[in-house]
C-alpha cells in the first residue's frame, strides 16, 4: 500500500457539513448503520436488563476511573516502576510524532520488516500504519474489521466495529477484488476463513506485534487486553517484540479495579457478559519459558491529555474506556455514520475528544453536531457528562473567534429574542400570537426569510388550530 493512498483525516467544518449531507442522502449507508446500531443497542439492553443493577455497576466503574484521575501522576510512576521491574521497557511520548518515532526506532533496531497489529485507537491517533509504511515497514491490521478497512484504504467508522459501515455484499466484493481474486467468499463464514488463512501466515512471519491497552494495572505492572478474535493474543505472544501503545489515562491502581471495568466495557460495547479473551501481560518471556516476546515495550502517549487534565470538567473526558456505547445510542451518529466526522474518534466521544486533542480553533465546530439529547450520558458506563462538556466546548469555540459571537454582533438575533421575551411575558400578546399561528402558521412557506435557514434541513412543524390553553379548557386534564 503506497503511503500517498493512505487515508488521512481532514478537519474542516465545510467538509464536515458536506460529508454529513452526502451521508444523509446515501440510503445504503443509512440502512447499514441503522441495522448495526439497533442491533448493538438491543444486545446491550439484554446484558444489562436491570436498570438499577446497571446503575450500581457503573457507579463502581466510574469510581475506579475517578480514582485514577485523582491520583494520575502517582499511578503513572507506579506503573512505570512495576513495568520496568517486570522487564517491560517504558517510553513516554508527548506527541504522536514522538510516539511514531519511538516505535520506528524499536523496529529499526531489530530490523523489523513486517509488523502485525491488534486493534488500537491510539495507533489510529498516531497514523502509525502510514508512518511505518513510509519507512518501509509493513503493518498489517489483524482484527477482522480493521483488516477489511485497511484493505479498502479507509478509516474506521466506529471505534469497536471499524467496518460497520459496510454490508455483506460490499465486503464480499472487496474480498474478490483485493484479497483473493480466486475467492468465492460470499458468506461471513467463508470470508472469515479466508482472512484467517491469510493472517495466520502474517502472524507466523511477523517480527513485531503492536497492540493497544485497555487497562494498565499500576500495582503489578500488568497490561490488559480485551478481545474476542485471538488476534490480540497472537500479536502480543508470537512475534519476538511486542510494542503496546496506550494513552496516559488508561492506568488503574489495582487488579481489583479490573472486574467492574471489564464487565461494563464488554457489556456496553457489544452486549457480552465477557469477551472470549482477557489477556493480562506482565512481562516478556522469562528464562525457561518457550514462547512470548523477548522484548515488551510500553509507549505512554500524552497527545493533549495532560492539557485536558487541567480543567475540572474537561478532565472527565479522560474517564473514557472506549466502549462506543455513546455512538451506538447517538441519533446523529446513527444517521450520518462514522466517516462524515472525518476524525479518529467519531460520535459523542469524538465530539468532545477531538476539539481537545486538535485544538478548539481547528475542531471546535464538532461540538455543534449534537442535539444535546443526552442519550450518550445515560448509557456511558463511566458517567462522563458529555453534554456538559459539549456546552463548554461550544462556549470556548464561540469565544475563541469573536466573529462567531452572534450575541455581540447579530442585531437580528437580539431582536428576535426581545420579541420572544415580550410575547412570553404578556398573556394578551401571547394569546394573539398563538391564535395567529394556529390559523395562519401552516400557510408560512418554507422560503419565509429567517425561517428558511432553519428549515433548510428540517421540516416545519405543524401548528395546531387550538392552543394548549384552549384544549385544557375544553377537555380538562387527564392526570393519568
Amino acid at each position, binding site marked *: 500500500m503506497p503511503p500517498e493512498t493512505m487515508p488521512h483525516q481532514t478537519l474542516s467544518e465545510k467538509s464536515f457539513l458536506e460529508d454529513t449531507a452526502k451521508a444523509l442522502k446515501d440510503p445504503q449507508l443509512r440502512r447499514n448503520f441503522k441495522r448495526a446500531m439497533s442491533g448493538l443497542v438491543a444486545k446491550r439492553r439484554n446484558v444489562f436488563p436491570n436498570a438499577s443493577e446497571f446503575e450500581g455497576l457503573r457507579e463502581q466503574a466510574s469510581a475506579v476511573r475517578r480514582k485514577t484521575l485523582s491520583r494520575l501522576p502517582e499511578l503513572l510512576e507506579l506503573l512505570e516502576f512495576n513495568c520496568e521491574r517486570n522487564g517491560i521497557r517504558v517510553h513516554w511520548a508527548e506527541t504522536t510524532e514522538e510516539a511514531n518515532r519511538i516505535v520506528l526506532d524499536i523496529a529499526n533496531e531489530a530490523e523489523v520488516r513486517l509488523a502485525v497489529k491488534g486493534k488500537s485507537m491510539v495507533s489510529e491517533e498516531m497514523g502509525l500504519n502510514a508512518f511505518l509504511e513510509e519507512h518501509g515497514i509493513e503493518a498489517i491490521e489483524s482484527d477482522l474489521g480493521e483488516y477489511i478497512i485497511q484493505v479498502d484504504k479507509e478509516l474506521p467508522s466506529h471505534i469497536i466495529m471499524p467496518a460497520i459501515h459496510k454490508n455483506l455484499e460490499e465486503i464480499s466484493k472487496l474480498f474478490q477484488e483485493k484479497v483473493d481474486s480466486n475467492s468465492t467468499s460470499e458468506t461471513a463464514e467463508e470470508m472469515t476463513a479466508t482472512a484467517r488463512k491469510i493472517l495466520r501466515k502474517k502472524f507466523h512471519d511477523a517480527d513485531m506485534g503492536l497492540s493497544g491497552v485497555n487497562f494498565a494495572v499500576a500495582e503489578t505492572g500488568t497490561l490488559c487486553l480485551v478481545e*474476542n478474535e485471538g488476534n490480540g493474543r497472537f500479536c502480543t505472544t508470537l512475534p*519476538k517484540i511486542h510494542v503496546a501503545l496506550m494513552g496516559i489515562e488508561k492506568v488503574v491502581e489495582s487488579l481489583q479495579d479490573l472486574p467492574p471495568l471489564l464487565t461494563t466495557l464488554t457489556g456496553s460495547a457489544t452486549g457480552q457478559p465477557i469477551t472470549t479473551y482477557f489477556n493480562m*501481560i506482565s512481562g516478556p518471556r522469562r528464562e525457561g519459558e518457550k514462547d512470548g516476546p523477548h522484548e515488551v515495550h510500553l509507549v505512554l502517549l500524552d497527545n493533549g491529555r495532560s492539557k485536558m487534565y487541567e480543567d475540572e470538567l474537561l478532565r472527565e473526558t479522560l474517564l473514557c474506556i472506549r466502549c462506543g456505547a455513546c455512538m451506538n445510542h447517538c441519533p446523529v451518529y446513527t444517521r450520518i455514520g462514522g466517516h462524515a466526522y472525518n476524525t479518529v474518534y467519531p460520535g459523542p466521544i469524538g465530539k468532545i475528544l477531538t476539539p481537545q486533542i486538535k485544538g478548539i480553533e481547528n475542531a471546535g465546530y464538532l461540538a455543534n453536531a449534537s442535539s444535546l439529547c443526552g442519550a450518550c450520558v445515560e448509557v456511558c458506563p463511566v458517567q462522563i457528562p458529555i453534554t456538559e462538556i459539549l456546552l463548554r466546548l461550544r462556549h470556548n469555540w464561540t469565544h475563541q473567534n469573536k466573529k462567531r459571537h452572534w450575541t455581540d454582533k447579530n442585531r437580528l438575533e437580539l431582536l428576535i429574542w426581545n420579541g420572544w421575551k415580550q410575547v412570553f411575558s404578556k398573556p394578551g400578546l401571547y394569546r394573539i400570537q398563538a391564535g395567529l399561528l394556529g390559523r395562519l402558521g401552516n400557510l408560512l412557506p418554507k422560503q419565509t426569510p429567517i425561517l428558511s435557514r432553519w428549515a433548510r434541513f428540517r421540516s416545519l412543524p405543524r401548528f395546531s388550530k387550538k392552543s394548549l390553553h384552549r384544549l385544557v379548557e375544553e377537555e380538562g386534564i387527564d392526570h393519568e
Partner: protein
Amino acid sequence: MSESVSQRSRIMKRLTTIHSRSQFAEFRPMKQPNPPSWTLKEKISRLKSTMEAVHTEVLLCNDLDFSSVFQRVVEEKGIGRLLYARNTALGSQIYLMKERTPNKLPELATYDESIENWKEQLFSVDASVTETRGGIAETGSLILWPTEEEPRLMSLVPPIHLAVLKAETIHHNFSEVIQKEKWSEQMPTNALLISGPSKTADIEQTLVYGVHGPSQLVVFVIQSN
C-alpha cells in the same frame, strides 16, 4: 532514549503541577455488591450454561470416566495430532492412556523447544489439551496461567483446544479469585481468562466462530469422587 526521558519529565511535570493545585473528590471505595453464594453444583451449572451459550462444549466427568470421555471426544473430532504437556499431572495421565490403549489416542506431540524452533510443528497440530488454573462461574471463564510446560500459544494456535477444569477450582467471580489467590503478589508473565472459542462479528454483525484462535473449545469439568 534521552529524548523519551525529557518527554517523560515534561509530561510528569505538567501532571504534578496540575494535580497539586486541583481539588479532587476523595475516593471512597464502593461497597462491592454481595458476591453470589452458590453451591459447587450451582457453580458448575452456571459455568456450563454460560459457556455453552458461546459455543463451548462442556462435559461433566469424574476421575473414573475421564479417560473414556476424553477418548471419545478425540475420536469424534477426528484429531490426528494432539499437543500435550508430558510433565503435568494431566500429561502423565494422557501418556498412560496412550501406553495402555495406543489406538484409542492419536499421535501425541509435545512443546519441547522454544517457539522459534518449533513454529512449523505448532502450526500443524490439530488440537491441544491443557490444564487450567481454575474457572469463573459468573462469566463462564477458564483461568489459564501458561507455564514452561504449557506455554502461552498452546491454547491459541491449534484449531481445537481441549481444557481440563477441576470443579473445586471454580470461583464465583473474577473479583473473588483475584482476592483469594492473592494475584497482586504473584502475577505470571501472562494470565488469561478464556470464555469460549475465538469469535468475530465484524462482518455485518454476523457471529462467526474460529477467526484467529481455536474454533472449538471443549471443557472437561472433573468432579472428584
